[in-house]
């Protein structure tokens, strides 16, 4: 068993529950022992640092200080943005001691302190490859995902900017490909592997976001993938939940499912889909799973319904999709071609 201090991040508690649930299942058999940072706080995503630098870094550093207090040395995060925020803050505080000093003065107001560089901050994908190892993973596979054509979508924030020189290549990293091959999936040639999903632009500049989402999905389609696989809650959310909006924006009918790599690893290790969060996606994975002879059981869908609460606090007239005609921007590839 390797021990890690676990920083889940806010998305793992809400929109990326499938990631959290599947990670909790596969951790034990793979020998990953996770101890969650007690009372961790949000890392600020890409928002806080665009407002106030020192508070943003102090927010991140509270987590580092709490993690360091446990006496363990290695922090594991499964969210790409959280991983990058923690790793980058640690790096910058060491690179620019004046920043580190100010952040520590702020931490002192909460009786905490952190020595930059004292923790090793890692992403789950890196841990799986470099600590657990592909051989161990392969040895645990009881149900190779033969015949499933997967587009490996690593996204931006895991391999970049890579100040700690952790990854194989910032633009064409091989880590996710290796994991998928180890579990027997067929990895398609997917040029979009590290292009952006649009990040928070779905909220503030949907047209920009739709274009980025469209490029990704069309690239996966062209590669004849059955499914896309991600390591990041934001990527999953954008490609999955905003796929419908993207379709209505461009008049396309894409149906490209996207799941977390831990969900596929879980399937290969023999866990049933319902334990791995399958069924919680908006773009159905049913067709893709049928390629490996699996169904999303009714049970999984029913369980999803259990979480149902009173409904959105908005008037009933607003509870349908209104089809508003909108301007359709030509795809960038069409324009540039």
């Amino acid at each position, binding site marked *: 068993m390797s021990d890690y201090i676990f920083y889940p991040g806010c998305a793992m508690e809400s929109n990326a529950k499938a990631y959290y649930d599947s990670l909790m299942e596969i951790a034990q058999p793979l020998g990953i022992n996770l101890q969650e940072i007690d009372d961790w706080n949000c890392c600020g995503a890409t928002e806080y640092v665009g*407002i106030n630098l020192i508070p943003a870094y102090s927010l991140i550093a509270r987590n580092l200080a709490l993690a360091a207090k446990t006496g363990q040395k290695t922090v594991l995060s499964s969210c790409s943005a959280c991983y990058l925020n923690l790793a980058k803050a640690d790096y910058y505080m060491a690179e620019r001691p004046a920043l580190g000093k100010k952040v520590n003065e702020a931490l002192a*107001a909460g009786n905490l302190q952190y020595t930059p560089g004292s923790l090793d901050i890692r992403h789950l994908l890196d841990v799986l490859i470099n600590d657990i190892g592909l051989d161990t993973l392969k040895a645990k596979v009881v149900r190779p995902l033969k015949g499933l054509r997967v587009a490996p979508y690593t996204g931006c924030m895991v391999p970049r900017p890579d100040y700690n020189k952790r990854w194989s290549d910032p633009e064409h990293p091989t880590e996710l490909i290796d994991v998928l091959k180890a579990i027997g999936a067929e990895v398609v040639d997917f040029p979009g592997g590290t292009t952006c999903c649009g990040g928070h632009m779905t909220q503030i500049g949907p047209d920009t976001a739709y274009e980025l989402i469209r490029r990704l999905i069309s690239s996966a389609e062209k590669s004849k993938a059955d499914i896309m696989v991600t390591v990041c809650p934001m990527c999953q959310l954008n490609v999955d939940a905003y796929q419908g909006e993207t379709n209505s924006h461009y008049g396309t009918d894409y149906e490209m499912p996207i799941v977390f790599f831990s969900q596929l690893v879980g399937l290969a290790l023999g866990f049933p889909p319902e334990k791995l969060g399958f069924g919680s996606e908006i773009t159905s994975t049913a067709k893709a799973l049928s390629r490996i002879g699996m169904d999303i059981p009714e049970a999984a869908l029913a369980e999803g319904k259990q979480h149902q609460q009173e409904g959105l606090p908005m008037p009933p007239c607003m509870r349908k999709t209104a089809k508003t005609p909108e301007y359709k921007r030509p795809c960038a590839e069409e324009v540039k071609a």
Partner: protein
Amino acid sequence: MSKKPVEHVHARLDHDEDLSLLHEVSMKTAGVSRLEMCIQCGSCGGSCPSEMDMDHTPRTLFAMLRAGMREEALLSNTPWICVSCYHCVVRCPQNVHITDVMYALKSMAIQEKKYRDSSAPDFSETFVEMVEKYGRSYEFGLATRHYLKHSPLRMIRTAAMGLDMLKKGRLNMKPTTIKGMDQLTAILNKAKEMELAHE
């Protein structure tokens, strides 16, 4: 394989250039920005996936900073359209911390209230408000507040998707509050004090 370390060329800066704006932005960037090292090669703009919606490419924006064009640079939508993908950063031959410079420019624009469209700055501010109140982000509250204020029509269009997310247990209707809220508030207040003192 990872990039080999490159030998950096020093950007040629004229002695009578007023670089105060460039230095100011550089100081407000996390880490060592290396903004002064920009050689105007344009690799950043050429690598940028959202460049099509930007007023200026990152290269142009940095030229504007060097020329001291404060108003124009802060009013540019470029930092707000930046999706933080770090493509430019790994391709920049001078290792300029471009993405972090974008963050610094956003915070300056907010402080000086220099933006043409308030939607993006408002979104960041609402996000921060939620985190300062609960210690965790609260998507549901954030999205509803943001949509109500800036695009009620879009709220109607996305309501069905919101319901789906809710049904699948992916949207929390109530925020989670951390136990150490007082501690976090004390830390953030002290940090804000220092940020102001730094101005």
